[in-house]
């Protein structure tokens, strides 16, 4: 298979400049992951304008490294401060924080970072082999297949996302509606502008990400009146080496977590349920099940492995199909378009250096990442000792700078404020934000795929079911949409087994 391609990729990823970019990205990403109110998605969104002048491969390496850093950073706050920086690190707090309280924070952190690395590595290897195959298949896809895949994407938010399925659906619809505002490129008509010229260019999802996740999250965290009661890190080389001696004992948990993570991860919204599922499985099969929740190392290994495997797997549909699996991947996809690349299966044919550089950089980025976080944990943890009255305005200003820079337009900064308020209200009322952002990104693509399919079939919806590939995908998607209705009945029928709680992805 394409080993020469991977070598080509390493040739690109291991240049001094690109390695430097990776180090900067991981550094910034970890800081962003540690800070409240900033996460992978809006961190990537804010830095996106800085990549406009960079070569595309270096730009994507910066953004993906930022993402790896943010994934690592989430574990630091979960373990030391009992604050999950990201929803998929919630399960890490269950055993990580008790361990830190018992003075074993160093052990927990080492286990978390190592597990993250193992999970990520597993997914990267699978991506290396599956991505070209998937892209090859996707080349044969027509508009109906693409629409079916997008339909599947959104059905999995409704069916597997947890929470209120109606509210997930509203988020999706709202995202699509916002995406439709402005000039309709097919007919040249203005839609839903109601005479306002400002609405002509529509809503940019990057602004939505910064507002909904950045400003909205800040408003939520000041409301909760965050106080960081940190424990010391207790990290040194001895602790790291000693923990590495224990970890191979949990190989079953590693394998299970990696598979769960990859399987859940390439579907959207997968990282959070994957981490909970992996935790639940580890607890069920562990000999020390009663110690879970009180400070069991395996309880840190399980969710971290799965969350990172899922986080990396979310990149697979992004590079092969042009359909992002998470809001962060969505922002990167937006970046691809800005850098002048056409996302989708053709990327493997037209820009092999970009794709393979990206895949190779996943290996280097995660290796650099795990070493950096292991070495600099005390530094990252110290960020949270900065007083809140300093962090809050800094983050708001950074969000404003990022929003303005995307299009050099003031209206975007106002949109950011509005999206911030909407994000705050939606989050409080349990409307998930990730589907809204993905719908906003995919809106035009989905609409075009739908229109073209309907033109092909002279207006009959049967086209989606008559073609074998789209038919199967549509059937699965409809099943997902039906899940929230069917599951309660099924539970009652089986005598009420309780599933794992899955909070929402952001």
């Amino acid at each position, binding site marked *: 298979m394409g080993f020469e391609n991977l070598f080509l990729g390493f040739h690109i990823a291991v240049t001094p400049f690109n390695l430097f970019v990776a180090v900067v990205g991981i550094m910034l990403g970890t800081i962003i992951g540690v800070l409240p109110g900033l996460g992978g998605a809006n961190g990537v969104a804010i830095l996106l*304008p800085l990549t406009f002048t960079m070569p595309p491969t270096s730009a994507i390496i910066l953004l993906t490294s930022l993402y790896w850093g943010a994934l690592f950073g989430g574990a630091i706050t979960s373990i030391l401060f009992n604050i999950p920086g990201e929803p998929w690190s919630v399960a890490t707090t269950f055993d990580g924080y008790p361990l830190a309280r018992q003075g074993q924070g160093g052990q927990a952190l080492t286990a978390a970072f190592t597990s993250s690395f193992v999970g990520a590595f597993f997914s990267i290897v699978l991506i290396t082999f599956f991505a070209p195959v998937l892209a090859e298949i996707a080349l044969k896809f027509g508009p109906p297949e693409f629409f079916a895949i997008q339909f599947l994407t959104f059905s999995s938010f409704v069916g597997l996302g947890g929470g209120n399925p109606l509210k997930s659906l509203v988020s999706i619809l709202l995202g699509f509606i916002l995406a439709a505002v402005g000039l309709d490129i097919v007919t040249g008509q203005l839609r839903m502008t109601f005479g306002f010229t400002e609405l002509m260019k529509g809503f940019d999802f990057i602004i939505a990400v910064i507002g909904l996740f950045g400003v909205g999250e800040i408003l939520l965290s000041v*409301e909760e009146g965050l106080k960081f009661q940190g424990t010391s890190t207790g990290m040194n080389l001895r602790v790291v080496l000693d923990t590495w001696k224990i970890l191979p004992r949990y190989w079953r948990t590693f394998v299970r977590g990696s598979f769960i993570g990859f399987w859940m991860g390439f579907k959207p919204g997968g990282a959070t349920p994957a981490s909970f599922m992996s935790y639940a499985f580890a607890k069920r099969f562990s000999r020390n099940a009663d110690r879970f929740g009180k400070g069991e190392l395996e309880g840190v290994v399980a969710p971290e492995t799965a969350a990172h495997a899922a986080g990396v797997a979310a990149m697979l549909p992004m590079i092969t199909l042009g359909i992002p699996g998470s809001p962060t991947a969505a922002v990167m996809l937006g970046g691809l378009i800005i850098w002048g690349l056409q996302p989708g299966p053709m990327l493997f044919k037209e820009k092999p250096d970009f794709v393979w550089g990206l895949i190779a950089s996943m290996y280097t980025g995660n290796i650099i990442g795990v070493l950096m976080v292991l070495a600099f944990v005390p530094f990252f943890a110290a960020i949270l000792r900065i007083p809140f009255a300093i962090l809050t305005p800094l983050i*708001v200003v950074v969000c404003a700078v990022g929003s*303005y820079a995307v299009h050099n337009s003031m209206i975007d900064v106002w949109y950011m404020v509005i999206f911030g308020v909407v994000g705050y209200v939606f989050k409080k*009322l349990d409307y998930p934000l990730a589907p809204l952002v993905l719908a906003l990104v995919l809106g035009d693509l989905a609409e075009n795929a739908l229109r073209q399919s309907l033109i092909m079939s002279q207006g009959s919806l049967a086209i989606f079911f008559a073609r074998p590939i789209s038919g199967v995908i549509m059937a699965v998607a409809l099943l997902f949409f039906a899940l929230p209705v069917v599951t309660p009945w099924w539970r009652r029928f089986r005598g009420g087994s309780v599933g794992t709680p899955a909070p929402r992805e952001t």
Partner: protein
Amino acid sequence: MRAADLATAVVLMGLGGLVMFDAVRLGYDWGSDGPKSGFFPFWLAVALVVTSGLIVVQALRRHSPQPFVSREQLRPVLAVLVPATAMVLIMEVAGLYVASALYVAFYMRWVGRHRWITIALLALGLPIATFVIFERWFLVPMPKGPLEAWLGL
């Protein structure tokens, strides 16, 4: 919580109605060469109205004693939101650098009660850092006002 849930769902229903109204203007049926402009928005809006309607029903049937936001919770939220909005307003006239310096200084003094020296360092340091990174290194221009014009930047 219930009132806020109801209000949001009703606003969303209204939004759906507005979109439907516009979609009808654009035409939501089959045109000469495929679906018209309003086709996709129309069915999205129909689905939005139906789904938010179901959420209204759901909210009406469920009681939640917990308020959406308490007075103590709202205060810090507004303390961030109102000055942030003011900052964006100032940005329109005075540019980003002046606005962000004022915002950082105001928030740190008013909420954090930090010492003036710390405030001065950060309120000046942040705009300068932004200027160097964005404007100089990455050539991304930021909105500027009279101060920058006077300094000749």
